[in-house]
């Protein structure tokens, strides 16, 4: 589904942040991306999300070389990827419900077709009673769950999550992990960038460990 081959990335004239990355994100796979702070996890997620191009090497996403995809085609490809940003990126003037429904709204779908799905998902992530609340009123954990729900709402083929359990308590983290696993069982490939060893220990999954720009993979 996503293929990296000898990928390297540097910012400007600086040193390479990521070096010689070669790996695949197969369909229906589940993996954790981990490593010390500053190792380049967020940068790697950006490469996976096509918001960055590699300085060298080849990245093929859904069979397309990302270096040659015209900007006009990127939105269509991004619709197949769900992303949970570390800083959530919720729109403060929209309610929790509207934020979660946003990906469907920009696809031109009618509200009647997705209203029940959005409400169910919000209930599942524990925000059933916060649907009409604006993000500034939500706690950090609630914002995180809203951001996760927004990434999941259109059942993406790949889910990229940057520290998705960073602001929630262990029971909620477990619940969110179950949500990711459920999504994975339904066919979505999941990549979770995390520091949380406890979270990783709960699931037998591939671990991708970034250290000093190098990637080691433990199946």
């Amino acid at each position, binding site marked *: 589904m996503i293929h990296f081959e000898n990928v390297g990335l540097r910012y400007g004239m600086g040193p390479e942040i990521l070096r010689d990355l070669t790996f695949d994100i197969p369909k229906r796979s589940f993996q954790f991306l981990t490593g010390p702070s500053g190792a380049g996890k967020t940068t790697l997620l950006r490469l996976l999300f096509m918001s*960055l191009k590699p300085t060298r090497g080849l990245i093929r996403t859904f069979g397309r070389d990302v270096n040659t995809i015209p*900007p*006009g085609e990127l939105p269509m490809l991004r619709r197949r990827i769900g992303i949970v940003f570390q*800083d959530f990126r919720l*729109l403060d003037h929209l309610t929790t419900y509207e934020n979660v429904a946003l990906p469907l709204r*920009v696809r031109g779908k009618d509200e009647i077709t997705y209203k029940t799905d959005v*409400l169910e998902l919000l209930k599942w992530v524990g925000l059933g009673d916060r649907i009409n609340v604006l993000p500034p009123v939500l706690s950090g954990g609630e914002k995180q769950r809203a951001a996760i729900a927004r990434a999941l709402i259109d059942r993406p083929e790949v889910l990229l999550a940057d520290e998705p359990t960073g602001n929630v308590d262990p029971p909620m983290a477990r619940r969110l992990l179950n949500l990711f696993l459920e999504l994975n069982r339904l066919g979505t490939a999941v990549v979770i960038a995390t520091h949380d060893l406890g979270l990783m220990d709960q699931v037998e999954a591939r671990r991708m460990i970034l250290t000093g720009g190098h990637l080691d993979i433990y199946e």
Partner: protein
Amino acid sequence: MRVRPMGPIVPPTNIQSNALAVVIAIMAFLACLTLGGVSMVRATAASWQSQISREITIQIKPDDKLDMNAALTKARDIALSFVGTRDGQIMDDAATSRLLEPWLGPNLNLDELPVPRLVVITIDEQNPPDFEAMRAMLKDEIPQASLDDHRTWVDRLVSMAHTTVLIGLSIMTLVFSAMILTVIFATRGALAGNRHIVEVLHFVGAEASFVGREFQKHFLKISLKGSAAGSLLAAGLFAGLGFWQSRSLATPQSDQAAALFGTFSVGYGGYLGIFATMLIIALLTTITARLTVMRTIHEIDQIRSDPARTDILPD
């Protein structure tokens, strides 16, 4: 739990959009004021020109051998025999006395003074008579007669009117240029505060045209609100001043204002211009908003090719 009706993707009001509406209203007011002013100057200049070129004057100097009354009648008949003349009026003794009163005082006896006499001929402005032929014929028939077709004055007035209109148009061009630049920069400033919305929409899979359309709708509303307020205020000002002038005809204040500015009426053309200005401003804001959003998306996409520019992306 009930879900509130879907809110707009772009926040309806914030400080930037309110400030933009005020800037647009002020610029629309100034632009419409200039437009109305130029339209007034043009109308006044045209009216001066028309008033002075509507008449010609035949002057007959007194002569011992000349029967003045017969010469005046003959001069009027000669003038009226030309195609393009409409009416002829001999200035009688009373009218001539009134004309000379400021210099020679009241109760003037014209028989005691060799005062030239005048015949005023009204002409068709669209189809004026052949002045040279008329002048030659008058000279032949009445050697003491001379024809003044007011060309010197008309030419001076036309030149002055053209200069005035040109100055007005230059000021209007400057005001419109300032308006365009102000509206563009104010729109871009207002959009800068919404960059995060463009980014989020882009990253959740919105196409550039969708994002452009959402912002376009939003800024069209703001600009219509602002430009309508400014334009209506300017139109109201002209209508109010026109009304005041029509209600206070022949008063010293009104006469003074009319002498300075002409009539305050801008006419249908002027109001149409004000309406067009309002639409131009609305269109300009909308196009600027769309182009700025497109450029923002282009910048986000450019960062893909130049990772060193990720400074504008949050970590």
